[in-house]
Structure formats: C-alpha cells, structure tokens
C-alpha cells in the first residue's frame, strides 16, 4: 500500500477540509450525493461556496443555500425533481443574496472536460440565440476556424471549469483509496477536473479494486482522491443506485418544510440535533 494513499477521515473531518469560498462541484440527485457530509457543512456552517452542479443539483444545493453556505450557483438546473421546486434556491435568488450562473447540461460537461484535458475551453454546438449567452459573458461565440473558405460558422466556446473540490458519495472504496463508481462516470469527470476530491463511501473493502478487471472498469484510481470517509447510508434520504432507494417521505417532508425560511430553519435544527457530530 502506498503511504500516499488518501487519508481515511471521519465525516466531520472530511467536511472540515472544505473551506469557506470553495468552488465545490456536486453531482445530481441521480448520482452519488454525500448527504452526510453536506449535513456537517451546514452544521459548521461553511460560507461563500461556489457550487457547480454536474450538471444539475437538487437537495444538496437547496439545503446548503438554505443554511447560508452558498454565494454562487453554477448549474443547468436546480430542482427537487418530483418533489417540486427548490424553494430555498428560488427564495435566495429572489432576495438577491445568491449569484446565479445559469448553464445548460452539456456546457457544464464541456467545461469540466476542458479542465480534465488541461485546455482553456471546449467548443460546443447549440447555444447561439439562447439568452444564456447574454447572462454568461464568460461564454463566447467565435467563427469556427476550420469552416470552409468563405463560410461563417459561429460556434460557442465554453471556458474550463476547474473546481477546487469535488464531493460525492459512492458504494465502496478500497484501502488504497480507489473508489468504485460503476456507470456514474460523471463522478470520474468531476474528480479528473477538480483540484481535490473528497468521497464518502458505504464501506471500505479489502483488496484492490483495480485488481478485478470488472470492478476496475468502474473505479476512480486513488491518484485523484484526496480523502475518504465511511458514511453508512451516507446518501440518505436520497437513494444510492443498487444500494438503497430514496426515502421519499423524508424528501417530501424536506420539500414542504423548505417552502418557508422558518420551516427550513426548524427542519435544519431538528436534523442537526438528531444527527450528532462524529469526531
């Protein structure tokens, strides 16, 4: 085992590695959400996060916004899905306390891929004529330099998105720090694109995930992992594919509570009270 393997931390110590002002990329609710870590971030609370949704966000973003942790959101959408609008997100936008960088899914993927490849931008089709270009002055339209002679072929270019930290939850890691994510390759893209990657997992397994040809295909090598924590049911109340389903009653209760500022405060207080910090 490498002594350079990423450290195994408690959930709260892992959360403490995510400082104020961090540009933090989070996955969509259908991927692996590190909800236990999010709870610790709200307990502190961390401040002035720049959240990047890869490419959309749900409960994680709404909760962090409600808890006053977020200065800016960059995402293709923020929604609680079948549980309705993300009320804390919507309220924070209306009050003017939240900066919004609206995007579209493939532009977020392209920006992360640019960072993954170490290039300053990626070209992308679509977008031209969308008001997203008006509210995203960092996106530019150029003439395709390879267009046939005499033809103008406008194309958007999306700057690289390099988050400081990627944070997500996965089913398992090994003691070398390799993390199995299966088909959820957007988590690998997040890790490649970010300066640091923190992951909570259901369990640490024996052996080396890279030694099994089947598991290796869905594994992020420890090379990209900065720290790990075990959090059993760490994605709850959101589900984790092939591990457990979403607790829809809990999600609906959150969505209802979060419709008002007071309702959110009560929900958060009860949550922090019920889940004492683990050192």
């Amino acid at each position, binding site marked *: 085992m490498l002594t350079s393997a990423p450290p195994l931390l408690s959930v709260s110590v892992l959360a403490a590695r995510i400082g104020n002002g961090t540009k933090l990329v989070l996955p969509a609710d259908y*991927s692996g959400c590190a909800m236990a870590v999010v709870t610790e971030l709200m307990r502190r609370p961390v401040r002035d996060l720049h959240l990047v949704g890869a*490419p959309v966000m749900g409960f994680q973003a709404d909760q962090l916004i409600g808890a006053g942790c977020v200065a800016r959101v960059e995402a293709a959408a923020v929604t609680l899905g*079948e549980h309705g609008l993300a009320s804390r997100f919507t309220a924070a936008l*209306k009050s003017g306390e939240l900066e919004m960088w609206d995007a579209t899914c493939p532009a977020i993927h392209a920006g992360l891929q640019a960072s993954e490849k170490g290039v300053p931008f990626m070209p992308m089709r679509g977008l031209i*004529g969308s008001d997203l270009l008006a*509210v995203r002055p960092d996106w530019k339209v150029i003439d395709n330099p390879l267009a046939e002679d005499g033809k103008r072929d406008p194309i958007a270019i999306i700057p690289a998105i390099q988050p400081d930290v990627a944070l997500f939850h996965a089913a398992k890691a090994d003691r070398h720090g390799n993390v199995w994510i299966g088909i959820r390759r957007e*988590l690998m*893209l997040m890790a490649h694109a970010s300066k640091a990657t923190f992951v909570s997992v259901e369990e640490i397994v024996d052996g080396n995930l890279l030694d099994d040809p089947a598991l290796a295909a869905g594994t992020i090598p420890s090379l990209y992992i900065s720290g790990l924590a075990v959090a059993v049911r760490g994605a709850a109340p959101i589900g984790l594919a092939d591990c457990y389903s979403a607790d829809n009653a809990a999600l609906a209760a959150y969505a209802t509570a979060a419709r008002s500022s007071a309702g959110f405060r009560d929900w958060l207080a009860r949550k922090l009270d019920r889940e004492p910090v683990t050192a």
Partner: protein
Amino acid sequence: MSAASHLSPSEIMIAAVAPMLEGLGHVAVGSQSPIPGSAALLAQARSGGRMRVSILGSRDQNPFTDGGRELFDCAGQGRIDAFFLSGGQIDGAANINLVGTGEIETYPRHQQRFPGSFGSAYLYYVVPRVILFREEHTPRTLVKVVDFISAPGTSAANVYRPGGPFALVTSRCVFSFDKHRARFTLQSLHPGVTTAEIAEYTGFAYDTPARVPETPSPDPATLALLRGDIARLVAATYPGFALKTWGIG
C-alpha cells in the same frame, strides 16, 4: 368512439405523441416525462422492437454507460432521432423558457424562477425531431414572447442546426411547427375541445385550418397494449404515474 370516451387525459396525449415517433430508430426521454415516456414505449412496441427507447433515470430503459455527458454526445453524433422538451413558457416561435419570468434585465431576480435550462440549449439544436410537451395549456404557459430564451425555436441559416421543434402537445390540442415560417398550426383537437377554447387559452398567434380534426384515438388493440404491457413497463420507471393512470404499480 366509445373506446375514446373512456380515454383519460393522459392516454389521449400518449396516443397523440406515439404516432409522431413512427419509423424512428432511437427516441430518448427525460427522467421526469411519464407521458412522453409512455408514448415512446408504446411506439417501440408498435415498431416490433425496431425502435430503441432510452429513458434517463430508468434502471432498465437507460443504456448509457459513459456518464451524464453521453446523452448529449450521442445526440451530437446524430444517434438520437427524437427528444422531448418543455418550458415554463413557450411562445409562438417555439422559443422555450426554462429559466424564469420577468424582464431579462432583472435576471436572476425573476418574478417566478423555473428550475433551469437543463440540456435544452443544446438538444433543441441537434435532435431532428423535438416534441414540445406541456400539459398546462393557458396564456400563462403559452405566451406571445418568452421572457427568457433558454433555447430558440429557429436559427439563422448559417447556424449549425440539424434539429428543432416538430410539434407541441398540450392537454388540449396538438400544434405542428413550420420552421421556415417559425409558426405553429393547430393540427388536432383533443376530444371535446373547440377551436374557440384553443384561441382563448393560447397566448400566441397560430394558424387554424378551415377544418381541424380530432386528435386520433388509439384503436382497441393499441389501447389494450397501452393498458397492458406498456403500463407495466411504465410502472417500472414512473410508478406514481402508472398508479394514477392505470391503477398499477
């Protein structure tokens, strides 16, 4: 028409969408689109399995293994023939707004904030047959001009755009879209709906032919298929919808 009289509003819309997919090779559906998803599964069954249907967020119907970007890459490769989009607002030029209402100068402090543009600002350009779907058919949703263009209905000739809007399906009717004129035409009325009702509830201008047919109802065999095999398939991905529509889950 006795079978049609028993059709639920959802079944009418499913039956309206399914024929639009006939003959296509690959139809993709977003994760929270049970009516388009049901229509796609119905069209697939009627194709004898020649049509592929990919439903995002589905365990069984989602073939993608390269992460969140694959849907968009796949569409960019020209491998997706039809997709569904919606909008908090849709206007008469088929511009769609998934961001929010109010003057764009007030962005992002919208009067009403929608979730966001998702993949619309890309997929609307590259998928040949985009079907707009919006159950709520009111002047609030179908507006003269959208407040924010998440994705435009048409583009200048020199903009790369192999795709675009094909039709708009609501709880009241079906509009077809002519991209050269950037304008909708009333194509069919759901059972019991009148052209006057459409005029009253539609915020944008559109063309009305001299005679507007009723949205075709499924024949008995198709309806049996929908309420049997398809309903069971739908239940695996959209359990709440299947329970509400067909009482199974």
